């Protein structure tokens, strides 16, 4: 479970998040809100990429303040633009990067690389230059790069924003097939169909929290 206790976040003079307290225990959680509402900053708090100005974030009892490395082992993060997440020029080298950082053996790296690429029908692209992949393939590679690290939670920050409809659907299928707990910040309300919980942000505060059936109609009304 991820526990957020009285968290505030300030960048310079700007209050990005104000006194947020939440317990995240559902398998599929969506974070929605307008641009600048604080949802991306909130997502970044969950694996310690950003530390709160006040309050604490704990993942299965580990505080992001002093156990950042252990937290990031547990919580994978998928960014909006996969180009900013792919570090190595060749597909299989990029997948190996995270596993090497975690000290996986060479045999394990090879096995997991093949297993993950096969899962997304990308095995034949293992030696392909990453910059020549399509947008959808790049995002699947970014998700794969996180999956091979075997996290318990995956946080995604608008992973379908840059994609066309076909690739959006491909990513939606990939997300729904994940065994891990998924926390997804998005503008795409179709993507969160079937989620267990939806949290709405406005002005750095939680304005809505409930099931999709409760929250989405109210959110649409707010955005009208």
């Amino acid at each position: 479970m991820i526990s957020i206790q009285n968290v505030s976040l300030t960048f310079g003079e700007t209050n990005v998040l104000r006194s947020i307290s939440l317990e995240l225990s559902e398998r599929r959680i969506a974070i929605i809100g307008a641009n600048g509402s604080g949802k991306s900053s909130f997502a970044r708090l969950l694996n310690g990429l950003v530390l709160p100005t006040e309050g604490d974030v704990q993942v299965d009892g580990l505080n992001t303040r002093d156990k950042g490395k252990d937290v990031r082992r547990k919580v994978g993060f998928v960014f909006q633009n996969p180009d900013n997440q792919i570090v190595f020029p060749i597909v299989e080298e990029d997948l190996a990067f995270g596993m090497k950082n975690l000290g996986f053996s060479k045999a394990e790296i090879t096995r997991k690389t093949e297993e993950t690429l096969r899962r997304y029908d990308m095995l034949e692209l293992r030696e392909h230059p990453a910059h020549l992949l399509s947008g959808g393939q790049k995002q699947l590679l970014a998700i794969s790069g996180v999956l091979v690290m075997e996290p318990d939670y995956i946080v995604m920050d608008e992973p379908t924003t840059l994609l066309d409809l076909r690739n959006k659907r491909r990513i939606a299928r990939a997300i729904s097939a994940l065994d891990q707990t998924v926390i997804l910040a998005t503008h795409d309300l179709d993507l969160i169909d079937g989620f267990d919980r939806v949290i709405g942000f406005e002005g750095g505060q939680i304005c809505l929290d409930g099931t999709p059936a409760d929250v989405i109609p109210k959110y649409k009304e707010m955005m009208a």
Partner: protein
Amino acid sequence: MLDLYVSGQSFLHRCPAGVKLLVLIAVGTVLFLFNSITPIAVATIFAITLYPMATLSLARAWAQVRPAIWILAILFLVQGLLVSWHIAVFIVLRFAALLLLAGLVTLTTRSSDMIDAITRGLHWLRPIGVNPGKVGLAISLALRFIPVLASVTRDVREAQQARGLERSLVATVIPVAVRMLKMADDISDAIDARGYRP
């Protein structure tokens, strides 16, 4: 466009990255010891023949030299006019041979193998504060983001052309720099998120 690793099973593909880098350094040094055009011409022809031997096309060999063609042309003209045409041919051939050989190493070596070799090779610099792992990651990021930088530059140029600005260096460089700096922030977060510890 930067050419990266092309998979294959040739002897050059199978040769360890460290050996290829050492040979490249040695040959690069030796090329500067010759004063005669004949050994340089032989080296250039040898570099070209290595491409088919590594199952790479001659078009790919040309692609290694093409990006530098204007620099080579200027070098040729300046040397030809100021020194002699013989020296101009000599210098251009030497640079071409170096480019072809360096390209061959990149095309037949996985970047991860090259980075591992560089990291091992720089280990002795650790006592004076050089972190070989960081150097390796920096090289990998450079290889990865050269095509991305080219794509961002193309986007910015197209956006400016769409707004009626045909050519402006400043109007290209500033937005590209801003976008790359923003990208650098995200990349650093992404590296952090994937468990990297220098």
